[in-house]
């Protein structure tokens, strides 16, 4: 574990992976660490607006290796009708039907958010199922599109440009600014997909 100072008021903590980043971010929130933002990444946690010593003390101590909050499991109904099922099948060395079977069989974890409010990077695909991004991004991907890039899965909360391989779409609402909990998927949420 490594602490990197990011200017006078922020610290980036490097950890081994997604699970540890989630656990550290969760422990920091549970302990009420005085940070304006606690932002998990793929292999880091950023503490912004914080006293670096407070982060150093947290990191030096013990914390549970699991996410403390009950972030729950979300099941997303998906119509597997995306334009990129074939390229994913080729990358995975299987049929399109098997892509659906494999995708619905796995449990994902929302590792971190970014790109857009409510867009969660979902971890859960093995390394050998890695898929490339599109050579040139599409100018418009529909809201609810379920897509893959690298070993990540993501669901587009709003229509937007995007370079991920789209395998289907869900009618679930990923983001609602007016709701008390605006994001359906927050770091730590477990996610399963169900074919409709």
């Amino acid at each position, binding site marked *: 574990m490594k602490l990197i100072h*990011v*200017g006078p008021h922020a610290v980036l903590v490097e950890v081994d992976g997604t699970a540890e980043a989630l656990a550290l971010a969760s422990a920091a929130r549970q302990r009420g660490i005085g940070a304006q933002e606690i*932002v998990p*990444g793929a292999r880091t946690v950023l503490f*912004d607006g914080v006293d670096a010593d407070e982060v150093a003390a947290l990191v030096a101590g013990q914390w549970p290796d699991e996410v403390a909050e009950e972030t729950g499991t979300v099941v997303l109904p998906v119509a597997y009708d995306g334009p990129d099922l074939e390229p994913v099948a080729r990358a995975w060395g299987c049929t399109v039907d098997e892509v659906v079977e494999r995708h619905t069989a796995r449990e994902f974890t929302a590792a971190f958010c970014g790109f857009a409010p409510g867009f969660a990077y979902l971890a859960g695909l093995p390394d050998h199922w890695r898929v490339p991004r599109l050579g040139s991004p599409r100018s418009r991907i529909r809201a609810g599109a379920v897509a893959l890039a690298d070993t990540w899965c993501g669901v587009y909360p709003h229509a937007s440009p995007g370079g991920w391989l789209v395998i289907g779409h869900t009618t679930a609402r990923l983001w609602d600014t007016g709701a008390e909990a605006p994001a359906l998927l927050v770091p730590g949420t477990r996610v399963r997909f169900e074919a409709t």
Partner: protein
Amino acid sequence: MILEVIDPGPLTTIQDLGRFGWAHLGVPRAGALDRAAARLANRLVGNAPEHAVLETTMGGVTLLARRAVTFAVTGAQAEVRVDGRPVHSGLPVTVRAGARIHVGPARSGVRSYVAFAGGLAVEPVLGSRSTDTLAWIGPPPLACGQLLPLGPRGHPPAAVDVSVPRSHDHVMTWRRGPRHDWVDDGAWRALDGAEYAVGQHSDRIGLRLVGHAVPRAVSGELASEGVVTGGVQLPPSGHPVVFLADHPTTGGYPVIALVDDADLDWCGQLRPGDRVTIRVR
């Protein structure tokens, strides 16, 4: 509703200090880019620093006051007129009901700030009245005919005789950032004193710097990580981007440097084509 938008200009948004505590869900902070100018405008009309103000972009704004209001304009230098008559910017001005307030195009800088006594009282979104132009969270940009409410007046205006326009020398101080080692020592030496132009596509999200492309010492990709305002991101093109208030909350390009917080206010006033000199500390 106290103010009516007659002409919103090219982009006029409502801004306060920003939206805190949502970065982990991908929500940018937003908030006034030139925070000192927004704070001064609020102070001039007796508001608290967190009151919401208008932020114009190059082209100004025209409003109709349906009630007597006190306002002040700071930030980018612009002609300010009430019913066609010039009034001072950088000072509180009280106008009668029915007055037309016109803030002209920026003569220098980009963003003028207009504070009204009582503050713009639009409904907060996730705890802030700021408009974020990356994800469009917050109140929409001003539109023709829109009506804007003001809050109750606070204190009497602060006693400020003259607000002195700030000058700066366009020297941007960079300190090494979390991924500074993605650039080798030779490239760092070349950066110190290097001159860059502000790119055409600079906006509230980032200041794009055009000039000598900075070579990367590391190939490959960085796992996405949280980024801070003032971070200098180095995309594969080698043209650095300084993250301003509406920057994405996580990113996969290395943040090689950090711009001093004190420099960020004037960064928000740089126009495309303006030149800046990098100083590496």
